[in-house]
């Protein structure tokens, strides 16, 4: 994510490459973000199994849902005893942003139905950021598919490894893995918050409200109530083509 943005910001972007899929800088960024995704995947698998879920739950969920933050929150609600309805609703509400993202990359994904159907499953925060950070259509397409395939493979391999190691790892709190996911979120949202005062006006009171109501409402609900912060959103100076 961060490296993708650095690519976009580099002065004097390189001339259009006839084979963007072999661009070493793009490949390096894709591998780095994929490895980071894999590490988070290990923590997701380990936390799920250490929390008492069978190994197949995080593994199957990662293959068919394939949305990190929604998976963490759904498993979090399940493990906290919040009930299946709250778990699914929390995850789905978090994923509504993917509809906006998929609109943003629709042209990049391609026109044929096989690529539409397959590409849709690869729409994540990271692939969208990667794709939109590129300058020309060929590079955008290469970045989307490269990062999409790498992230899907490494995320699922990480989850499987973490789930298998989960019980052997014992209490994952010892490794501080519970701090990893909020930190990932911080890395994802800080660039947007840094640049957009309108966004800060909505997000910070929303988060404060969520924290305030956490002791008194069911799990999953505080985050949804944070959307009240949107009432304070006036629309900031978000640069064109910039994903959330």
């Amino acid at each position: 994510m961060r490296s993708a943005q650095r690519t976009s910001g580099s002065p004097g972007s390189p001339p259009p490459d006839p084979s963007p899929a072999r661009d070493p800088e793009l490949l390096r960024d894709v591998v780095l973000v994929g490895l980071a995704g894999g590490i988070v995947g290990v923590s997701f698998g380990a936390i799920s199994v250490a929390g008492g879920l069978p190994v197949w739950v995080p593994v199957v969920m990662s293959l068919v849902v394939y949305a990190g933050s929604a998976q963490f929150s759904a498993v979090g609600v399940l493990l906290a005893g919040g009930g299946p309805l709250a778990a699914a609703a929390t995850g789905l509400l978090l994923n509504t942003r993917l509809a906006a993202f998929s609109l943003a990359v629709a042209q990049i994904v391609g026109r044929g139905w096989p690529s539409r159907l397959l590409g849709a499953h690869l729409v994540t925060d990271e692939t969208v950021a990667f794709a939109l950070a590129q300058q020309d259509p060929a590079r955008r397409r290469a970045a989307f598919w490269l990062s999409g395939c790498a992230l899907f493979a490494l995320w699922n391999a990480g989850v499987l490894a973490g789930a298998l190691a989960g019980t052997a790892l014992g209490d994952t709190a010892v490794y501080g893995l519970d701090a990893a996911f909020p930190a990932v979120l911080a890395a994802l949202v800080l660039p947007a918050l840094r640049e957009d005062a309108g966004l800060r006006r909505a997000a910070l009171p929303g988060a404060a409200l969520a924290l305030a109501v956490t002791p008194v409402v069911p799990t999953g609900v505080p985050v949804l109530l944070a959307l009240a912060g949107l009432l304070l959103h006036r629309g900031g100076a978000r640069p064109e083509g910039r994903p959330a």
Partner: protein
Amino acid sequence: MSATVAVILALAAGTYVLRLAGPVLHGRVTLPARVRELLSAGAVVLLVALLATGALTEGGGFAGWARPAGVLAGAVLAWRRAPFAVVVLGAAGVAALLRAVGVE
């Protein structure tokens, strides 16, 4: 366990439909700019709230000092534009270190 299967299926189907919206609607529908803006702002608001509650709370109560300290370390690294992997490992490392010396 059937409740867990239902959660996974509902989440998978719903997520896929949301992701398919763009490729399917492409060239047919244009969302008003204000709606698109609120959609992406809403995503950030949700993520920041998830970050705050995930860093500070656990089961409706305070999560202890080690986790928020680890998240703070990760956030500082992210603010200083450290690579993604460094942010993740830094956050986990600080939380683990604090717990190892007895800070919960």
